[in-house]
């Protein structure tokens, strides 16, 4: 014969049998001990006279008892959402976040005909302590992640600013501020590169030294603004007349330099020069004035007319002087005997 009372009095779960009016029918030792009651003296007593229950807890307990009896299925109080129903001391001996034992309670039918149910009370305080701790740690971690993300964002923003500043500095150092063309520094770098490639692959390239004819007159008659506008338009024409692989630069005033990459022969260089001259010859409108501008071009070819930057530029300049002397609006290729 199994002695059920011995089992119910030795398990680590609170057992309380009551009716729908909260009259106590049975209380096991666990429950009595935690509620500081004598289990033998509670039978037949109203639960509310034995344990202090909050008014809202009494209402919700009665509601859940009704649910259990009607559905013949368990109802629950959970430590997670309800905390506790019975104010019992918990078994935690260290500092606890909870004043009372946190309880999961299952209300199961006992004797439906007499509206009796049994409450099974589980101590979940340790679990809730752990849960609270995890929640606290998770909140702190989330906060730390938020701070880290904010820092990363700031660093990324600073990096973007730095990259932009670097781009600006590079542009200022390598490009002409008026026309956006390559400046002397960049031209020097590109020419150096072409020379190295030329030696390595026996490749020819050309240097075109361009100078607008009578540009000073335009500046003097129409003003410097018009002169600047004309320089910008000339820059665009030069870009249109050359390939992407070529380099167009302004080296000061009305002087331009064009590096023509991979030139087959002198003829090719001359064709390009003529194309530039013909295009620039077309009327250009500046501040409602139709201008007829011409340009003179001096040319040198690598490696025939020089093997370094200075020599190639110097010889192109000499050829330019020759083109100017020949009446302007034309081109000349450097000749050793010029």
């Amino acid at each position: 014969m199994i002695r059920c009372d011995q089992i119910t009095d030795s398990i680590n779960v609170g057992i309380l049998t009551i009716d729908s009016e909260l009259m106590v029918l049975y209380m096991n030792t666990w429950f009595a001990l935690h509620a500081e009651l004598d289990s033998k003296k509670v039978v037949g007593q109203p639960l509310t006279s034995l344990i202090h229950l909050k008014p809202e807890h009494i209402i919700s307990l009665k509601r859940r008892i009704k649910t259990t009896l009607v559905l013949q299925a368990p109802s629950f109080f959970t430590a997670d959402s309800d905390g506790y129903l019975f104010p019992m001391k918990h078994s935690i001996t260290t500092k606890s976040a909870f004043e009372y034992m946190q309880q999961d309670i299952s209300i199961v039918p006992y004797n439906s005909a007499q509206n009796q149910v049994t409450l099974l009370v589980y101590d979940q305080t340790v679990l809730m302590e752990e849960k609270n701790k995890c929640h606290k740690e998770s909140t702190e971690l989330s906060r730390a992640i938020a701070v880290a993300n904010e820092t990363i964002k700031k660093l990324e923003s600073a990096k973007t600013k730095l990259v932009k500043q670097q781009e600006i500095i590079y542009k200022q150092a390598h490009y002409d501020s008026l026309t956006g063309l390559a400046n002397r520094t960049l031209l020097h770098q590109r020419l150096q590169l072409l020379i190295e490639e030329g030696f390595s692959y026996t490749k020819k390239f050309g240097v075109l030294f361009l100078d607008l004819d009578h540009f000073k007159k335009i500046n003097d008659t129409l003003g410097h603004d018009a002169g600047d506008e004309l320089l910008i338009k000339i820059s665009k024409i030069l870009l249109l007349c050359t390939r992407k692989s070529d380099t167009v630069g302004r080296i000061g005033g009305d002087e331009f330099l064009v590096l023509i990459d991979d030139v087959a022969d002198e003829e090719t260089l001359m064709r390009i020069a003529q194309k530039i001259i013909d295009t620039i010859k077309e009327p250009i409108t500046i501040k409602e004035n139709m201008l007829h501008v011409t340009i003179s071009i001096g040319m040198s070819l690598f490696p025939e007319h020089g093997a370094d930057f200075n020599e190639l530029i110097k010889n192109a300049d000499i050829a330019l002087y020759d083109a100017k002397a020949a009446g302007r609006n034309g081109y000349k290729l450097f000749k050793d005997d010029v």
Partner: protein
Amino acid sequence: MASFTFNPSQEDTLKELINVSFGVAASLIGDLLESHAKLHIPEISTIAIQDFDAKILELLGEEETFYLTKQRFIGSFNGEVIFAFTPKCATSFCNLLLKSDEALDEADTKSSILELTNIITSACISQLCEIINGQTVFQVPSIEKRDIALLDNYERIVGYDNVIVIKTALDIEQENILGHMFILLNNRMLEHLQYIMEGL
């Protein structure tokens, strides 16, 4: 993996059974609230468990957060019931249950929603368990508030193959409390349920 589907006759039977359960649940809810409560005829569909999160997004995608309750039932008929409620519906029900017009705290809302879902779960699962002559024990339910944007971060539910999705629309007084019930079952349970329903 394709989701399990009920044929039209099985679906009708399931709908009828759930409807009867809803009737019992609504009557009890009305009694507890001292008001008339009506649970609408359920809309039922099935999805594969892999599509569960996508279904939540489809149903509650416009919300930032939602309440999710979970309750397992074990025994010869076993599975898990999940409910999803918008915070607005959860608060409305809480106010009705606790007869309060004021904003109630999170614990009250959670407790009220668990009480509601426990009633619907018990009514439905007991009914299904009865028709398959099975036995089941309900475990303690749990509730949590989830963030829609972080759905991928929550732990995946394992051990089930299919989900019966049931729209639960509860009318109480002037309020319409809309929730979504998900019954998670494995293939064996579903096949058994299907077999039994075929014979009804």
